[in-house]
């Protein structure tokens, strides 16, 4: 047993910390929050220069084939920003789905370009009847000779505004099961509309008779679910690590503020009511942290029960991030809701990511299955 980071991971942690502190200070993060597409390309170049876009991709497909724990260390520190952007969607989630589902030729063609950052993928899964189960996907592709025609609406799609390619989940008319299609984000008939509100990076994506070549059907027709689910489940702990980073930062902010802010002649951190908020916060932080780390270790070492741990980690970290920001707001009171202060970037991220790849409720349902509670 050794629960410390290894040398590689410490290096990743240090360089990511430096990046977040330097290139991505609070002003930049506030700008990214309102106009992400204006400045993201500049950052994306740095992401790929630093090799981040290829970390989760095997060497055989142009990546650096890092352990998931290495990738998680990167995402935890990005979550400390919080640095937004499509790195998770493209270089982890879609990369893993393609890795699980794609044909050898597709993997050879697509993954090196994901690893280099040339292609940016976003996963178009959820629809009007929002949900992350197979039965929530109603969209159907029409067969058109050897090709396909896609029509329908996807909504709350993460990072579509940054994408060069969309990985679209849909059925095929007249068939049972789901299929995966690679679609150019700029293809004729695709329109991407960012959604406003208390959320980050989500869009509506409308497909209007979009032509998809037969060769862009990823993997085998009508049997995408297994690979898709495996890609999603094994990506979960990376997203969780990003949330752990967020919890970590709001904990530091709350602790620092409680030690500076004076009321009634003393710093508020001396009041036990205020201390209780910070204690609740750190308990959420550590719950998210250790469930996530164990899931990562199980995936990296092929330990039995990895899937169960992934669901535990996602259920816990989504709830923890939400609650951690709540407690940070209780400590900060007024100043916490001033946009320039920066706390609300985390609050927004915690809400925005709560349902991404399934809310806690869904993961509890999945747990019921993996614990064999369902007969």
């Amino acid at each position: 047993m050794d629960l410390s980071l290894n040398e590689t991971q410490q290096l990743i942690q240090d360089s990511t910390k430096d990046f977040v502190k330097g290139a991505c200070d609070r002003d930049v993060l506030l700008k990214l929050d309102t106009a992400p597409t204006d400045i993201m390309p500049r950052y994306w170049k740095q992401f790929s220069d630093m090799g981040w876009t290829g970390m989760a991709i095997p060497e055989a497909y142009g990546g650096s084939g890092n352990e998931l724990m290495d990738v998680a260390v990167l995402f935890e520190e990005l979550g400390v920003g919080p640095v937004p952007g499509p790195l998770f969607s493209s270089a982890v989630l879609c990369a893993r789905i393609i890795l699980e589902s794609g044909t050898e030729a597709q993997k050879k063609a697509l993954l090196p370009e994901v690893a280099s950052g040339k292609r940016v993928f976003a996963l178009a899964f959820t629809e009007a009847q929002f949900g992350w189960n197979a039965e929530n996907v109603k969209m159907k592709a029409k067969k058109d000779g050897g090709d396909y025609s896609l029509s329908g609406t996807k909504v709350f799609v993460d990072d579509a505004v940054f994408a060069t390619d969309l990985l679209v989940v849909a059925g095929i008319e007249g068939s049972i099961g789901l299929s995966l299609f690679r679609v150019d984000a700029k293809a004729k008939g695709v329109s991407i509309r960012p959604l406003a509100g208390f959320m980050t990076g989500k869009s509506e994506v409308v497909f209007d008779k979009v032509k998809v070549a037969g060769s862009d059907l990823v993997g085998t027709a009508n049997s995408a679910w297994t690979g898709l689910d495996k890609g999603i489940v094994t990506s979960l702990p990376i997203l969780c690590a990003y949330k752990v980073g967020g919890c970590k930062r709001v904990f530091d902010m709350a602790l620092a503020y409680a030690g500076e802010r004076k009321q009634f002649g003393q710093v508020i951190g001396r009041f036990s009511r205020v201390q209780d908020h910070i204690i609740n916060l750190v308990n959420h932080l550590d719950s998210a942290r250790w469930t996530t780390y164990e899931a990562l270790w199980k995936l990296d070492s092929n330990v039995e029960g990895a899937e169960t741990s992934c669901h535990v980690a996602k259920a816990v970290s989504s709830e923890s991030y939400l609650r951690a920001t709540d407690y940070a707001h209780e400590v900060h009171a007024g100043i916490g809701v001033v946009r320039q202060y920066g706390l609300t970037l985390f609050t927004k991220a915690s809400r925005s990511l709560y349902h991404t790849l399934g809310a806690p409720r869904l993961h509890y349902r999945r747990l019921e299955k993996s614990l064999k509670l369902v007969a």
Partner: protein
Amino acid sequence: MDFAIEDTEQQQKLRMEVREFLEKNVPPGITHTVDAANQPPEQYQLRRELGRRLGKKGWLYPHMPKEYGGADMNADEVMVLNDELTRIGLALPPYYDSGGRMGAPTILVWGTEEHKKKFLPPIFRGEVRTWQLLSEPGAGSDLAGIKTTAIRDGDDYVVNGQKMWVGSAHGAERSWMIVVTDPKGKRHENLSWIMVDMSLPGITVTPMETLATGGEGGAGGGCKNSVFFDNVRIPAANLVGGENNGWKVATTHLEVEHGGTGRMSDRRVIGEFIDFCKETHNGVRIADDPDAREMLAELYVEGEIMRLFALRNHWLSHAHKPRTYEGPQYSLRRKLGSLDISERMLRIAGPYALTTDEKWAPLKGAIEYFQRDAITSLHPGATTDIQKVIMARRMGTGGREREAAGKLS
């Protein structure tokens, strides 16, 4: 990171060795009851016998130094021993030994070489069972407010006063206790720790009746006692850590008690209850009810968090990593998490969760016992409120420097 606790070849070898040893050395006749408080003296004696056999190999306190009777084992090796004892329904040590579990590491940090040579080997070899004596009628959370005095008189200290919430059933050979050595001294500068031979004249032990054991295992673990001291003469050489230096010494003792070292014995009842709900009993498979299923998944997750906090603390302490708030954080989680889980079990199982009746009780009454035990566990080793106070200090919430965790080595 590596969460594995039993994978290397060496550990596998050790596991086989331990298993073989236990097969040969666990005295025949050891039985397990759900409620440790109900175990008769013979059961206690059998566990003591096993303790002596383990002690001979240094395996009773395996992480302690060899020179005093331990085995110098690292975290992974200790876990193997723990696992193997847990597998057969026992713990390490296999009987209630609070004064050994918390006193020995304290003596190791604060005692003189003479103290260590005198007090540690009998504990580690299983020759003595030691209780810890801290609380008093007027001093629970406020430990520094104790009143029991030990006044120097020639080569002895003369002890008078009353301790509460002490030990277990079936007595102890020794007690490790905190006393006031300077009744006129300033708070925190008037205390000392002393090792007491329980056979000395003037000591009276009176049992108390409590709801449950409060998570303290071993035969008779649930019984608590009041211990009265009436002019008990204790050799001055038994005072450890310096006269009136007891508050500093207490930081080590309390760090162990507040969960700083992590306890690897998880709540077995969680897994057993989940399995029970997956089986059909009285014509009903509880897990078929979607509400019950949801609560089962939730209590499983809570159990996982408790287990992971314990695992983390175990590693932090055995790998000698810096700690701040983690000890009390685990204690707090274990206390509140257990209560939460027990109440979910009550909601799921209904009145079945409340009976020990042979005909109707699930899991031989283990659920009923857990209902009582989770409540009783809220106070031993400091209340939830005190755990929070310590966490806040360790995090430095008041802008002050973070209070350091108690020394463990």
